[in-house]
């Protein structure tokens, strides 16, 4: 059993894990031992739950990382922090989240933006960031769970917009009414395993949808798509 302390979304989480690889995976978010806000322990039962959801025969240490993300998400919602799926970037001090169903090209699109903006843009998290939803401020936080390419760093920023990426034959952006955008938000966040958590997350999504800009971008996987994204979303 490995015990370590993480700081995610400004919360200190004491983690007791079964595999050392979990601590290594989370290395950018480790902090010295200190009074924790929450203590989480991953069990073999948690790992088996993850195994039951996956068709691919992942090893226990990989499944434990997924189990840890789930447990963190099921803890932080109590502090109005929800787990999201998407590629989050930081530009001129603000966070922008690009989301889509798996395989549509979130990372490809943000990679193209990176090619254009170079050091002006950084990846906050390329897979599973957390969003803190408060009445006066929406903040996007990174997490150790940052995708296959491990793009991201331990940072946070006010969230300005969420954009749904859709494949298209032309590159263009539409701003979307929150009520129309809401189903996408529902599908791209983690709603938990209990009615209590799901209800709370839904309330937070309601608030979130009214506090940020919601866009959809129809795009090709080319550099012009990044130029449109920068002009119509990041520089707007």
């Amino acid at each position: 059993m490995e015990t370590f302390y993480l700081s995610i979304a400004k919360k200190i989480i004491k983690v007791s894990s079964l595999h050392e690889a979990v601590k290594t995976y989370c290395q950018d978010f480790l902090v010295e031992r200190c009074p924790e806000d929450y203590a989480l322990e991953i069990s073999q039962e948690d790992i088996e739950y993850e195994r039951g959801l996956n068709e691919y025969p992942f090893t226990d240490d990989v499944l434990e990382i997924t189990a840890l993300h789930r447990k963190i998400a099921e803890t932080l919602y109590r502090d109005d922090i929800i787990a999201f799926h998407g590629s989050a970037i930081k530009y001129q001090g603000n966070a922008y989240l690009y989301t889509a169903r798996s395989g549509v090209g979130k990372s490809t699109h943000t990679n193209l933006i990176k090619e254009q903006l170079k050091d002006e843009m950084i990846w906050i998290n390329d897979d599973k960031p957390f969003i803190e939803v408060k009445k006066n401020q929406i903040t996007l936080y990174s997490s150790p769970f940052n995708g296959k390419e491990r793009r991201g760093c331990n940072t946070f920023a006010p969230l300005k917009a969420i954009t749904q990426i859709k494949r298209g034959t032309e590159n263009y952006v539409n701003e979307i009414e929150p009520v129309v955008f809401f189903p996408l938000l529902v599908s791209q966040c983690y709603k938990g395993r209990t009615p209590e958590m799901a209800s709370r997350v839904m309330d937070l999504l309601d608030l979130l949808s009214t506090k940020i800009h919601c866009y959809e971008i129809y795009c090709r996987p080319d550099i012009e798509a990044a130029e449109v994204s920068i002009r119509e979303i990041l520089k707007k």
Partner: protein
Amino acid sequence: MRLNPDFIKHDTDKGAVLIAVGKTGEKFKGMVNINKTGSFIVDHLKEETTFETLLADIMKEYDIDEETAKNDLDAFLAGLRKIKAVLE
């Protein structure tokens, strides 16, 4: 029949939605908008019931004829079955 316990109804200012949690939520990540009658049916599906009982409940609650109520209930339940929100 009854509502799959992995599905929950969430009421908002604008109406109600049905979402899935747990293992079902891993497969059905979206939501279903439901109107007032749909919300009424979902509430009654929280306990074990039958098509006939639901039909009677709807006709008692709303001023509609049997044929309309039957068609509406059939269509609504078909939608729920499609996303495995109803256990038979």
